[in-house]
């Protein structure tokens, strides 16, 4: 019997906030797990109520917490509940959820779960087979375990910022929160490995994923140069240690660019032909790789003169047609309309009940027989309280009303003021 989705039958409690946790939970949801996003009215996911947030056509509307672009993107396919874990009633209900769940995902700073008396040993008492993954900035141990970070500062302390930048200029602040994306993707796989382990041994586990350590793991060769040679690799702009010409060249339009990477003498000659400057191929300054590398500044000037006359998409196609390595530097607008991503249906349009209809980006994983689905929009705040408490936990309507009356659950944030985060 083939199930339609890879992780059917698995239930995940996703306490993630911002990106790393929600992305991990989101991938598990896309692969078929039933993922319940757990927030509280006192403290919903901060991305729901940002003053500088992303709202449909820039309008927060009456209930901005249900119209946030970043929330709606990374929390698709999840059920949404609210539950105040600072209250005794909230903790009790949470433990009831733990009993019927397989996985807990969280990316709070280290002290939080413990401060709620909901750390791994305590959850394990309730459900010995529970799998918990903590995506933290520096790990669950060590002198800096309680340090606070966001994506950009993780890029710094993980070593990624130091090797990114124009030569001889102050390091550039990147702001993609790349470590969050890395952690979200790896976290999903780690959870699945733990599920397999549990299936074979009956044991759950607590997975400790340090985003800082993960960031350092993805600059492995840089670390090895220090380990082997005591040499500190620095930012080199867009240069490459073994290729020339190699770089980002301006094209016809404003702020329009193309990247070109010439790997071999053969490719170099081809490029000269395409540029209609065949004589350059034998020019002493450029005829072999070491000379091209030494004279690359001069070479870049020549190539720039040429690329400036081209539209970057056309130039990319022109170069790729003859087997040369080139890629247009795409803007968001171009990404959305890119023919390759279109044909692969990377962006999918979805309708959200309060935000409206918009295209959302796809995932970095495609499975041929159990394709990642994008069926449910992201939940409004507390949208599935009835389903989870009533159907899953078997509470009566009275019990649910009582929880709402006591402020343990709800559908409106305690503070509806938009915040600067």
């Amino acid at each position, binding site marked *: 019997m083939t199930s339609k989705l890879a992780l059917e039958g698995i239930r995940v409690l996703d306490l993630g906030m911002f990106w790393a946790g929600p992305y991990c939970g989101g991938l598990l949801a896309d692969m078929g797990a039933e993922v319940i996003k757990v927030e509280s009215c006192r403290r919903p996911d901060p991305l729901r109520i940002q003053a500088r947030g992303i709202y449909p056509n820039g309008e927060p509307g009456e209930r901005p917490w249900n119209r946030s672009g970043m929330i709606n993107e990374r929390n698709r396919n999840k059920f949404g509940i609210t539950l105040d874990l600072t209250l005794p009633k909230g903790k009790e209900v949470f433990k009831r959820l733990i009993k019927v769940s397989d996985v807990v995902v969280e990316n709070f700073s280290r002290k939080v779960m413990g401060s709620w008396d909901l750390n791994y040993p305590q959850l394990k008492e309730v459900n010995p087979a529970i799998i918990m993954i903590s995506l933290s900035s520096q790990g669950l141990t060590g002198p800096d375990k309680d340090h606070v970070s966001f994506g950009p500062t993780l890029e710094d302390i993980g070593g990624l910022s130091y090797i990114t930048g124009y030569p001889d200029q102050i390091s550039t602040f990147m702001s993609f929160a790349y470590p969050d994306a890395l952690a979200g993707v790896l976290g999903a796989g780690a959870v699945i490995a733990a599920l397999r382990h549990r299936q074979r041994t009956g044991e759950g586990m607590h997975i400790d994923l340090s985003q800082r350590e993960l960031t350092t793991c993805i600059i492995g060769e840089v670390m090895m140069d220090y380990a082997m040679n005591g040499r500190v690799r620095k930012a080199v702009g867009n240069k490459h240690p073994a290729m020339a010409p190699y770089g980002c060249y301006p094209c016809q339009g404003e702020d329009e660019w193309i990247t070109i990477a010439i790997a071999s003498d053969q490719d170099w000659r081809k490029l000269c032909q395409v540029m209609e400057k065949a004589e350059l191929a034998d020019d002493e300054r450029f005829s072999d790789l070491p000379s091209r590398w030494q004279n690359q500044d001069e070479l870049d000037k020549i190539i720039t003169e040429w690329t400036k006359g081209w539209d970057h998409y056309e130039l990319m196609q022109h170069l790729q047609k003859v087997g040369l390595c080139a*890629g247009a530097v795409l803007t968001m607008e171009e990404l959305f309309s890119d023919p390759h991503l279109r044909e692969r249906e990377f962006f999918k349009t979805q309708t959200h009940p309060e935000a409206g209809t918009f295209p959302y980006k796809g995932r970095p994983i495609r499975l041929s027989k159990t394709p990642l689905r994008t069926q449910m929009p992201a939940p409004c705040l507390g949208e599935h309280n009835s389903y989870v408490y009533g159907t899953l936990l078997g509470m009566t309507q009275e019990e649910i009303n009582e929880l709402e009356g006591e402020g343990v659950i709800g559908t409106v944030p305690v503070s509806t003021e938009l915040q600067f985060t």
Partner: protein
Amino acid sequence: MSEQPLSGITVIDLTHYIAGPFCTKLLAGMGAEVIKIERPIEGDPARRMGPFPEDIPDPEKSGAFLYLNTGKKSITLNLKTATGVKVFKQLVKEADVVVENFEPRVMPSLGLSYKTLERMNPGLVMTSISNFGQTGPYRDYKAEEMVILAMGGLMYLTGHPEQEPLRMGYAASQYMAGLASFSGTLAALYHAEQGGIGQQVDISLMECIAASHFQAVDQYSYTGRVLRRNRAMLGFPCKDGVVHLAMQPHHWPRLVEMLEMPELLEDPRFTTTQVRMRHAEELETLILPWMMERTMEEIYHAGQAVGLPIGYTASSEDLFKSPQYKAREFFIDIDHPRAGMLTYPGTPLRMGNLPWQHGRAPLLGEHNEEIYCQRLGYIREDLVRLRERGII
């Protein structure tokens, strides 16, 4: 070896360079048996990548290769020969996973498409990693790291607004693809172990980057606004480096506390986030002298002590010396018969109390005898013949 998350799993690993090997390195770390197939004589091109001790190239001493191939076995095999293909199929029949990162036309051209392998082994998971994916108009395009960042939309957002777009890191997209391959492989494997049906995992580096945008995609989708490169915000040079602050409004008093400049709290230019944004340059000018008198780690710890989300731009040396990393035992010493004892970055995650498998990288063809003779039943003489014909 005690029970590991991936005990009992056999991976036939055709990958080379970075993305694929990083994926299979993680699989090996969790206890899978990873049999790395390298081409005879040359091996994985990452053996040429370096860094090398004292910059002397040696295929058994490449830092990139040693790091990316921990815990794997190595056999040599030439898939461009009929015998090579036959041997490969024998291995695949008994395996759970195949991972490859050739250009999409390669496996089919060798008669080893997923369709073919699936018939031999219906439960097989085949993970195929490529620049643009197995389908689409760019399928056969050439690419490398910077080109992927450009076409994934990330490069346009990196760097200074008045300068050219910038490549982030050295191989950031390839490592991301390695992670996506790892998680995709596990999802397919988990599914296959439930019901016996395998499938193909299609990983596109371009899509890995396009899927990794923090807010630019959502911004364009919801508002049509196209983000571009921004001037660096709240980044401060200091005595020996640079620190960055990722501040929310409630951090402002803490920043003032760290700086020991209480007068800033009264200054009308800085009382709220909005006015602070308007006077950002003035604020930076006021703070700069304080920063320049201190090292970045001093500032980092002072800031963290008052609860500021602050970061310092750590170099590889800073990381090797980090007390946090030492306490976590993040770095691992691994001995290697040719490269000697070296210190490597360890594992990016800890699976409960289960020990991560930190075996060394293999020598080229080191496990030929083990796999060909002990497992597939060839005799030593066969290996000599196969070697002579360039098959292994």
